[in-house]
């Protein structure tokens, strides 16, 4: 018994929720990206004048687009679910007539929308700083969609798992942030010592940034097939894990 209107309504609820606090959810991330452009861009572009013929700012911009998308895709479902837990609204969620797959579609759909919106707005602001070239628009679109899905699944999974805000903060600050910052947002990973370069290959964010950066600049530090394979399989596994958690009512039903 499918309930498309119910699914759309939950998607709408999730979207309205972040649009109602747009200063915090849309404007703030774009402003922080502008600050990154200003601070890192202006200071590091002297130290790193160009990378494979591409200006440092053009090199940096795709990394910042990914950075904004990752954070927002993750935050949308994780904060929504944990707030529901604190407000006692999880029982409401378990009472409405939606299948688990429909819950997944609604939460992830809204998180992907928010991530894409942030990515697009970061791109629009970056246009003022950077002369973009577009090596492959289809790779930009495909990789940003996959990135949004992966972190939306992760955010939903973490929201389901967490009993308190602290757990989400811990994961964001001690797992995600290091992975993102060591993922080559601000520098080419090929500059890393060989051992760290090898370790970096296991960091999915490296592959995400590599794909988006290739889409804009044509620079690829890792094989595109490897990056797509890593990103695709991480997304698939995370999606399945999240669906199974929802299906079992893990940490949602008593």
């Amino acid at each position, binding site marked *: 018994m499918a309930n498309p*209107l*119910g699914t759309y*309504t939950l998607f709408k609820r999730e979207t309205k929720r972040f649009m109602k*606090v747009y200063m915090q959810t849309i404007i703030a991330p774009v402003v922080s990206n502008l600050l990154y452009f200003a601070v890192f861009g202006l200071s590091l572009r002297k130290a790193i004048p160009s990378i494979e013929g591409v200006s440092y700012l053009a090199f940096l911009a795709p990394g910042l687009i990914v950075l904004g998308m990752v954070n927002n895709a993750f935050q949308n479902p994780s904060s929504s679910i944990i707030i529901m837990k604190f407000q*006692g*609204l999880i*029982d409401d969620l378990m*009472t*409405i007539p939606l*299948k688990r797959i429909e819950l997944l579609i609604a939460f992830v759909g809204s998180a992907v929308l928010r991530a894409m919106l942030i990515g697009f707005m970061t791109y629009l602001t970056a246009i003022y700083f950077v002369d973009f070239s577009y090596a492959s628009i289809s790779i930009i679109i495909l990789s940003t969609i996959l990135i949004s899905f992966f972190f939306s699944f992760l955010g939903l999974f973490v929201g389901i798992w967490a009993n308190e805000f602290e757990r989400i903060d811990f994961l964001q600050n001690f797992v995600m942030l290091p992975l993102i910052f060591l993922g080559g947002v601000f520098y080419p990973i090929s500059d890393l010592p060989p051992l760290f370069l090898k370790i970096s290959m296991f960091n999915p964010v490296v592959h995400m940034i590599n794909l988006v950066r290739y889409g804009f600049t044509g620079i690829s530090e890792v094989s595109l097939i490897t990056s797509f394979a890593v990103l695709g399989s991480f997304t698939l596994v995370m999606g399945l894990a999240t669906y199974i958690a929802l299906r079992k009512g893990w940490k949602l039903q008593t």
Partner: protein
Amino acid sequence: MQSAIKVENLHKTYAPNGGNKGTHALRGLDLDIKKGEFFALLGPNGSGKTTFINILAGPTLKSKGKVEILGSDIDTHRVKTKFLLGVVPQEISFDSFFTVNEILELQSGYYGIRNNGKHIDEILSKLGLKEKKFTNSRALSGGMKRRLLIAKALIHKPEVLILDEPTAGVDVELRRSMWKYMKQLNEEGLTILLTTHYLEEAEQLCSRTAIIHNGKLVALDKTSELTKEKTLEDVFVELTYESDTGSGTTTDTKPISPNKRANG
């Protein structure tokens, strides 16, 4: 007559959690609530009422047993049975991002109803909330929040309404108007399952009453039969608190068989 809610041998055991030992909240509950009834489910705190309601509604998973809503098994027709139920939970909680109207529009949408404005207005009028239609739920008083919970539960015109202590903390006047409305809905065919600690409400409103204690049914009869010789409060105390005191434990109570109540 068709059963609105039918449960057979329903068990719920909560797994141990941290320092808490596991709890056997429901121990083989059997109940058959008929379509169109106004049915009271009474029991002391911790007797299993809310666990039972949460199993019907979805937040809690049963450990064993069979549950049917209007003939549909909740294991095989989970979504369908959710469409049939309206639930007023014990705890007051709302989406603090939204106004009364937005909450009810979203609730309509979850149940697949588009453009439900007319029905929303009707319910808000009946529950005295029309003037608060565009007020954020955070700004409502406790009594208004309770009424909004009822509006939410009724917005999709359910076949069965579950009221889990709906009048806790509600003033007398509001309680009266609420019950008047509930009575009217029941007369129009809505099946209502009520749990309450105000026993006089059950006595006045409900045609049949069940009492559960320690997860077991200890009485089930027409309310008029239960109160033939004693008040409902006396019956309730006798079957729950006094039986506990008698045995000296809250878990090994020997219940009075519900079968002894002929009209169960």
